[in-house]
């Protein structure tokens, strides 16, 4: 079971006008693993995962998620597929006109015909998971950055997705809060047995959480391997990441 791919990206190309962002990029995420994707800021990591969930069109190549080809799929099927993917945005992206409760209910109400009491219970469980049950009636603006990130994580998890994509989960947080978020991610991983794609340039985060790593360099999957393999590499381009 272990070697079953849940995401397969093959020969991906993406340009904005004259600038090539992705240039023959390949990536496979296997079931149950934590794959860390590292790359410099502006190297196209966010672009890559936006292509992955169909938020952005790509120029060439193929993307398969849970066996379905993203580029020729009906809108309704894509929406269905998206409920299997949890997405943590770089800036949390909580709906700022809604309370924490409404933020968490939003995906539930749209995809599940649960009773009121069941919806309520699921929201409470999700908040419990991230350790913030007391914030349920607050607005996102009333929370600190770290709390917002956790609520966003709770929202990404609420439909019990099979795959979770984290876009720089620890960026912009202080080291202690960052550590808390990483711990939370690992607990969730254990509890729900999800497969995760983690984008980061935080070396500590990568060390703790990764089973395998890929470096995105010049639009290509420059190298892959375990954390230790990459950290011991003599290649100056790779070394630059681990300083």
């Amino acid at each position, binding site marked *: 079971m272990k070697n079953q791919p849940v995401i397969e990206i093959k020969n991906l190309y993406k340009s904005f006008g004259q600038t090539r962002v992705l240039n023959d990029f390949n990536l496979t995420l296997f079931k149950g693993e934590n794959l860390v994707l590292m790359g410099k800021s502006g190297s196209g990591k966010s672009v890559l995962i936006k292509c992955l969930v169909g*938020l952005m069109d790509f120029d060439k190549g193929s993307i398969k998620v849970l066996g379905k080809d993203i580029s020729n799929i009906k809108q309704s099927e894509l929406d269905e597929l998206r409920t299997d993917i949890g997405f943590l945005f770089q800036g949390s992206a909580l709906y700022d006109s809604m309370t924490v409760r409404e933020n968490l209910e939003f995906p539930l109400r749209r995809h599940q015909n649960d009773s009121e009491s069941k919806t309520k219970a699921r929201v409470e469980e999700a908040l419990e998971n991230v350790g913030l049950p007391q914030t349920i009636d607050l607005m996102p603006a009333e929370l600190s950055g770290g709390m917002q990130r956790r609520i966003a994580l709770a929202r990404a998890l609420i439909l019990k997705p099979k795959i979770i994509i984290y876009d720089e989960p620890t960026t912009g947080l202080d080291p202690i809060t960052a550590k808390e978020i990483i711990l939370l991610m690992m607990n969730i991983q254990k509890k729900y047995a999800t497969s995760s794609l983690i984008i980061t340039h935080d070396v500590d985060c990568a060390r703790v959480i990764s089973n395998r790593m890929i470096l995105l360099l010049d639009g290509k999957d420059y190298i892959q391997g375990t954390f230790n393999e990459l950290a011991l590499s003599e290649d100056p381009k790779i070394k630059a990441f681990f300083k």
Partner: protein
Amino acid sequence: MKFLSSHQSGFISFFNEIGDMGNFTGRYFRELFSKPFEFREFLNQCYQMGNKSLLLVGVTGFILGLVFTLQSRPTLMEFGAVSWMPSMISISIVREIGPVIIALICAGRIGSSIGAELGSMKVTEQIDAMEVSGTNPFKYLVVTRILAATCMLPLLVIIGDFVALVGSAIIENAKGDVSFTLYFNQVFEALEFTDLIPATLKTFFFGFAIGLVGCFKGYNSNKGTAGVGKASNSAVVFTSMLLFVLDFIAVFITDIFYS
């Protein structure tokens, strides 16, 4: 040479924008008529828009009625035509001044807040978040807002017109001893369906324009917080201009039909 080319590119980007807005409008109508319709959010938006602008529309309408009557009185008096006051005021308010002034107020209130709200949702990736959670953000955010503005503006204009006439009646009552009953009797005598129908029809278009431009600017706003301010600001400027163009077209067409 540089001067010329910078103007040329401004010209081209203006027409590009008109084209983009045309596509946006097309998408609005396609998504308006395809299922599902976000009814709850539509009602919520109607409520928000009414709630946000009612007081403003009331106060503006009232002052408009007062000032307009005070200013016109001496002139009519000179011609010995003070008894024409109610009919003159009501026709000019209901036909022209009411719709235009109130639409402009709403462009400032509703249009700018739509622009800012959608703009900040875009910039902070909330629109993307909505899309990956399997909800069509265009339907949820744009269709409901444009439709709500289209429905609410006529209502707000009718309320504003009425309040303006009340303001006018108060002046007539105080200065000319015209009773409220007499005033409104004259108003209803003067107004005909040929005044009301085109005047109300055009307010639907005004509301549509306010919602459309606000949504278009917000939904397509640029990255960065500066983009949000720009979206909201240019929504107001562009809508105000568009309102006068629409008004001119409406008056032009009415004139063909009723003369």
